[in-house]
């Protein structure tokens, strides 16, 4: 939990940002540059000088940082991962309790602006060795090839600078390595060389109900692909991981190691190959030489400032902290796109009450999928979405009832007594980049004295049409399944696109290999580089990009 006592007090009249950079100072002061020579500030003497220079520093240990770290370590490079959060022992530290598990979320405050402010914290951002994979639901469908070229097909958004075939081998590798449980053959998308290594996880009550409703309406469904083990699985560098016990608590931390979070898969593999993973290290500065090359980073650890030098830097801190670090350090900004193109999946949920007992806390939450709406025939929007059944935990659900339905008093308590009879369906749909959806630095400071991020987000016509289409369909599915008291909770999920990848440094921050256009040894690898949001959950694609970025980097080092 961040300590924000002194800094938040009376921030009603925000102070002006303290601008450190002499160039920016002079620009703002409108003084001629000649009068303020640009001299890099001398390093504070109290920061100990590092004994050595490592080949690579990786900032962040989530779905972007961890696979990359393992790949680099396996190639024999000297690599250090800096993770802001602690290293947990899930068996001993994790409670099956939503409140007690809040330490898994990135809880430094972000300011949510726009007409549809995005919820952060438990909704999308993690901390700790393993990053957000510590609390992802393990839902790991592949994107479909068409997701990568929305502009070619619809004339909106931007296309990825490469096609599906670039990622396909990595999807296959990941599915086998992580032990993804899913149906073979998979009913949608191009045919695959290899099936999933494990059979799908069992369907819970919500999944059975969605299956029933979809069957009545003639909508094809399938057990979903999830990165949680339906059977014991041997993990290289780890040993045997045990099968999922249907505890249903993926979104607040897996205690058994059945869920393929990074701390039980890629990170032990990386460590086995010599990677140095340092928890509790919060990076504040990225240092450069006169030529603009990154020379190392400064980070805070146990209240001490530390400096580490590197030959290459990989920024994998997620689509908020990555652009925030770049903006704070005035680094890689020449495209003007850092912080822009913020996207968040359309993710409206529809709940209904059933006469049957559902007990929605049991089993893998997203057990059933339908991709029949990936390119719906009657769509009046670009792109598409997938449908998933959802399990839900009581505290999260109650909070949504309060926010979404506005219930309180006896009405809220009566409704919540039906918790065991409630089931939900969720969509996960594409989102276009819009000029007014972006991240900026706010005047308000966090507990460390750095500007908080402010994120503007408003759904536009395409997102609104898609959401309306989905809500109508999900209401029909629930009616067909026998639900009463059907209601919708509009929301956005995942954070995407704030340092996008492209062919030109004019409209993108990194090139097709994930390398910054304007910094010779800086790479970015997380959901911020996605040129478009894709109509699927991002974790598998982030990991695929991580392996690809590592391979491209290693090729270029030869």
């Amino acid at each position: 939990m961040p300590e924000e006592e002194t800094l938040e007090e009376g921030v009603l009249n925000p102070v002006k940002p303290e601008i450190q950079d002499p160039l920016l100072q002079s620009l703002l002061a409108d003084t001629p540059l000649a009068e303020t020579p640009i001299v890099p500030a001398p390093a504070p003497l109290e920061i100990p000088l590092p004994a050595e220079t490592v080949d690579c520093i990786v900032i962040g240990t989530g779905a972007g940082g961890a696979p990359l770290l393992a790949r680099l370590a396996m190639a024999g490079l000297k690599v250090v991962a800096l993770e802001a959060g602690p290293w947990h022992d899930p068996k001993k530290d994790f409670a099956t309790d939503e409140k007690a598990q809040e330490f898994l979320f990135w809880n430094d405050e972000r300011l949510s602006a726009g007409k549809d402010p995005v919820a952060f914290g438990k909704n999308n951002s993690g901390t700790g060795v393993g990053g957000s994979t510590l609390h992802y639901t393990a839902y790991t469908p592949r994107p479909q090839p068409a997701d990568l070229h929305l502009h070619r097909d619809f004339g909106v958004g931007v296309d990825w600078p490469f096609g599906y075939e670039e990622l396909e081998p990595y999807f296959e590798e990941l599915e086998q390595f992580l032990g993804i449980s899913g149906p073979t053959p998979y009913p949608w998308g191009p045919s695959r060389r290899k099936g999933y290594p494990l059979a799908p996880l069992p369907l819970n009550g919500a999944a059975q109900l969605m299956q029933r409703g979809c069957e009545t309406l003639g909508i094809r469904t399938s057990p979903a692909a999830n990165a949680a083990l339906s059977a014991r699985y041997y993990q290289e560098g780890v040993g045997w991981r045990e099968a999922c016990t249907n505890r249903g608590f993926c979104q607040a931390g897996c205690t058994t190691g059945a869920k393929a979070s990074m701390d039980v898969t890629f990170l032990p593999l990386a460590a086995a190959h010599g990677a140095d993973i340092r928890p509790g290290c919060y990076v504040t500065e990225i240092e450069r030489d006169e030529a603009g090359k990154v020379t190392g980073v400064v980070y805070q650890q146990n209240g001490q400032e530390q400096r580490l030098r590197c030959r290459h830097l990989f920024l994998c801190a997620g689509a908020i902290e990555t652009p925030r670090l770049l903006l704070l350090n005035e680094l890689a900004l020449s495209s003007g796109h850092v912080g822009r193109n913020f996207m968040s999946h359309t993710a409206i949920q529809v709940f209904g009450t059933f006469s049957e007992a559902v007990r929605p806390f049991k089993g893998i939450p997203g057990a059933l999928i339908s991709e029949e709406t990936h390119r719906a025939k009657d769509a009046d929007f670009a792109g598409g979405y997938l449908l998933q059944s959802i399990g839900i935990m009581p505290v999260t659900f109650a909070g949504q009832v309060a926010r979404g339905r506005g219930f309180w008093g006896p009405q809220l308590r009566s409704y919540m007594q039906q918790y065991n009879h409630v089931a939900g369906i969720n969509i996960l749909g594409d989102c276009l980049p819009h000029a007014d959806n972006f991240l900026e630095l706010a005047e308000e400071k966090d507990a460390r004295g750095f500007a908080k991020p402010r994120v503007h987000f408003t759904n536009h016509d395409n997102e609104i049409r898609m959401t309306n289409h989905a809500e109508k369909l999900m209401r029909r599915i629930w009616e067909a399944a026998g639900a009463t008291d059907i209601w919708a909770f509009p929301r956005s999920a995942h954070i995407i696109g704030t340092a996008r990848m492209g062919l030109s440094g004019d409209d993108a921050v990194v090139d097709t290999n994930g390398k910054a256009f304007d910094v010779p040894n800086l790479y970015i690898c997380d959901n911020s580089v996605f040129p478009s949001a894709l109509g699927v959950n991002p974790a598998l694609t982030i990991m695929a990009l991580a392996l690809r970025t590592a391979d491209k980097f290693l090729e270029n080092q030869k």
Partner: protein
Amino acid sequence: MISSPYPAGTVRALLATDQVSPPTRAALEARLLAPAYEPQFFDAATYELLRMVAARLFPQPDRPEPIELAPALDQRLLTGGSDGWRYDVLPPDREAYRLGLGGIRESGRVMFGAPFEHLTDLQQDVVLQAVQNETAPGPIWETLSAGRFFEELLAELTETYYAHPLAQEEIGYAGLADLPGWTHIGLNEKEAREPEEAK
């Protein structure tokens, strides 16, 4: 009206078994056995006002001792804790809560000629409904978004309420019995350690 379809005493009975893992038991017992709390962030009068608002949002006539919702909020504001985000239209949480609770007190005075604390239950509900609907009178609501403040207050108290083991018992949630995992997960399937629902 609020009587639960699930039997009382099941959570305490479960906590005494080895079907609850030690970290889970520790988290739940800390709430179940919470000692009396003295406010440290709010002054005594504002804290009492918060308790009265909480009592309208979560009336608990069915409980001999209501689940206290104000301590968790007072603690959080004291330590500066955050859930990772806040509406940009609201000021920092400490300001928002001081202002918002002041606004509720003020609206009571304008609408019924007495501070919120002196109103009847029904009048208090009318005031809170007006805050939720953004129709409550008073100058504070010209600078503080009444709807967003109410949403934040309600969501936080709601999450505190349903994190309490006895509230989880009330809705028949048995997920705290996290050992050894679940095998009966389909529709109408139930394991022996899950409570029976009254028809």
